[in-house]
C-alpha cells in the first residue's frame, strides 16, 4: 500500500498552531444558530404532538366506548325486530349498505375522474382544459348536503318525489368523490416523467397506447392510493345519504330498490334516539344506554373499514410500484 501525500515531507506532523486555528474555525461557535435550531425542533415536535392528541383521543374514545358492544353478533345481525332497551341488534344491514353504496359511488367516479385526469394531463389544451380545471375546483367545494339534494332532485324527475334507493346515494357520493379522484389522479399522472412518454413514442407506439401501457402503468400505485383516499373521504358522509337513501332496519342488497341503511346514518340514528326509559317490572333485560353503545360500536366498525381499505390500498401500491431493487 502506498500513502499519497500532498505535502512535501512524508508523515509531516501538523503545526499545533494551525491545528488550533482550524479547530476554532470548524467548531460550531454560532450559539445563536444552535439555539434557533433547538427552539425550532421543539416547536416542530410540539406541533406534531398537538396534532396527534385529537387523533389518539378519537381512536381511544371510539375503541373504549365501542368495544363491549362490538362482537360477532353485532356484525352479523340487523336491527329488524329490535326495540326498546333490548340487548340485541347489529349493523350487518348498515355494513352492506355502506359497502354497496360506496362501491357504486366508486364505480361511477373512478372512470369519470380518471378519464378527466387523463384528458387534462395528456390531451387538454386551451380553453376547455382551463374550464374543466375550474369546474373541478368548484366541485371540490360543494357542501355534501347540496350533493344529496342534487341527486335526490335528479332522480325525483324520473321516479317522482320521495324516491329513496341506494343508487341515488351513490350518485350523491360520486358528486363529492369525482373532484377528489380527478385531482389526485391528475397529480399522479403529472409525476410520470416525460422521458418515458418520449421513449414510447420513439418506439413507434401510438399516443393512446402510450397513455394506457406506459403512463397509467407507471402511475397505477399512486392512482390506487388516490382512489382509496377519495373512498375514505366519502364513506363517512351522513347528510346526503340521509336524504337520498333514508333509514331502514332490515337488510337490503338491492341498490336499485328501496331504502338502505349505512353506517354513518346508523350512528346518527342510534345516537339521536337517546336513552331508553327502562321499566324493570316489564322488561327482563333492558339497557338504558343501548342506543349509545350501538352508535359507538358502529363508529368503531366504520373506522375499521376505512383502515382496512387503506391497508388494501397500501398492498396494491406495493404490488404495482415500479421495480427499483437491484
Amino acid at each position, binding site marked *: 500500500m502506498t500513502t499519497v501525500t500532498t505535502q512535501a515531507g512524508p508523515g509531516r506532523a501538523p503545526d499545533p498552531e494551525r491545528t488550533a486555528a482550524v479547530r476554532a474555525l470548524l467548531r460550531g461557535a454560532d450559539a445563536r444558530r444552535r439555539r434557533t435550531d433547538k427552539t425550532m425542533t421543539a416547536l416542530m415536535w410540539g406541533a406534531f404532538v398537538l396534532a396527534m392528541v385529537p387523533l389518539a383521543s378519537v381512536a381511544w374514545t371510539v375503541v373504549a366506548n365501542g368495544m363491549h358492544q362490538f362482537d360477532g353478533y353485532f356484525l352479523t345481525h340487523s336491527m329488524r325486530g329490535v326495540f326498546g332497551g333490548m340487548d340485541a341488534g347489529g349493523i350487518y344491514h348498515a355494513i352492506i349498505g355502506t359497502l354497496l353504496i360506496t362501491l357504486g359511488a366508486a364505480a361511477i367516479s373512478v372512470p369519470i375522474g380518471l378519464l378527466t385526469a387523463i384528458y387534462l394531463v395528456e390531451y387538454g389544451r386551451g380553453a376547455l382544459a382551463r374550464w374543466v380545471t375550474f369546474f373541478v375546483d368548484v366541485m371540490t367545494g360543494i357542501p355534501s348536503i347540496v350533493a344529496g339534494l342534487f341527486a335526490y332532485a335528479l332522480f325525483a324527475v324520473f321516479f317522482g318525489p320521495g324516491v329513496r334507493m341506494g343508487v341515488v346515494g351513490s350518485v350523491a357520493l360520486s358528486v363529492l368523490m369525482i373532484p377528489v379522484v380527478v385531482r389526485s389522479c391528475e397529480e399522479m399522472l403529472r409525476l410520470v416523467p416525460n422521458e418515458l412518454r*418520449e421513449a414510447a413514442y420513439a418506439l413507434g407506439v401510438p399516443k393512446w397506447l402510450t397513455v394506457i401501457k406506459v403512463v397509467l402503468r407507471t402511475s397505477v400505485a399512486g392512482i390506487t392510493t388516490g382512489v382509496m383516499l377519495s373512498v375514505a373521504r366519502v364513506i363517512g358522509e351522513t347528510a346526503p345519504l340521509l336524504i337520498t337513501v333514508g333509514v331502514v332496519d332490515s337488510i337490503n342488497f338491492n341498490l336499485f330498490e328501496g331504502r338502505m341503511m349505512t353506517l354513518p346514518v346508523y350512528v346518527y340514528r342510534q345516537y339521536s334516539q337517546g336513552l331508553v326509559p327502562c321499566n324493570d317490572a316489564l322488561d327482563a333485560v333492558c339497557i338504558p344506554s343501548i342506543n349509545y353503545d350501538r352508535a359507538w360500536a358502529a363508529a368503531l366498525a366504520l373506522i375499521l373499514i376505512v383502515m382496512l381499505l387503506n391497508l388494501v390500498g397500501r398492498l396494491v401500491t406495493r404490488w404495482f410500484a415500479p*421495480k427499483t431493487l437491484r
Partner: protein
Amino acid sequence: MAQRIDVKDLDIYYSDFLAVQGVSMLIEPKSVTAFIGPSGCGKSTFLRTLNRMHEVIPGARVDGTVEMEGVDLYGADVDPVAVRRQVGMVFQRPNPFPTMSIRENVLAGVKLNNKRISKSAADELVESSLHGANLWNEVKDRLDRPGSGLSGGQQQRLCIARAIAVKPQVLLMDEPCSALDPISTLAIEDLVAELKDEYTIVIVTHNMQQAARVSDRTAFFNIAGTGKPGRLVEMDDTATMFSSPSQQATEDYISGRFG
C-alpha cells in the same frame, strides 16, 4: 435496409419562434453522421425532426421537406407513428421503463403495440437485440430483473437494444454518452461502429473527439446569438472537417477558439 435521408431547406418553429433555419443536408445510408455545435444551436431540435418527435411538443412545426428515399416524412399521407417505427431514437438520459424487466424493456416496441409474438420469437428477438447492443453477456442471467437496476451505461445500451428491436432503418442518437463514464462511452462508441453496418446512424455529440472517432461525416451547427435561429454552417467528411474546414467558424469551434 438502411435508408438515405435528404433534408431540403428545413425551417423549424416552436410556435412563432424560428429555432432552426434553412437546413439542407444529405444523410448517407450505412454511415455515421455526427452533429456538433454549441449548446442551444438546434442540433437536438433538428435531430428530433428526422423522426417527427419534435411534434410531441405543443406548437412545434416545420417548413421544408425531410425525404427518406424520396418520400417526404411530412407528407399528408404519412403517419408520424409509422415514421418513428422506421426511425428509432436513443435519448440523452437512459430511460428504460421502470415498470418493466430487462426482457420486457427490449420487447417494449412489440408489447406496447399490442402485437402478438410467440415466446420463441420473443426470446430470439431479445437475444439478438441485446447482442446487437453488446449487453447480452452482462444481463443474460437476469433478464427478469428490473431494467432500472442496471448501471447508467448498461441502461443506455438497454435503450439501444430496445430501439433496434423494432428493426428501424435509421437510428438517431441524441448525446447518448453525455451521462456516461468514459468506459461506458467507449462501449457505446464501439457499438455505434458495429451498428453502422446495418443502420443509418445520426449522432448528436458535444464531444468533438467522439465525433472524430465514430463518424464518417460531420455537420457543424452554430447560432449567431441568443434569439437568433440556429443554422447548419457546414457539413463534410469528418476527416476534412477536423483538418481543413472551409468555414472560419468551424475551425474556431473545433480548435476551441469559439466565443
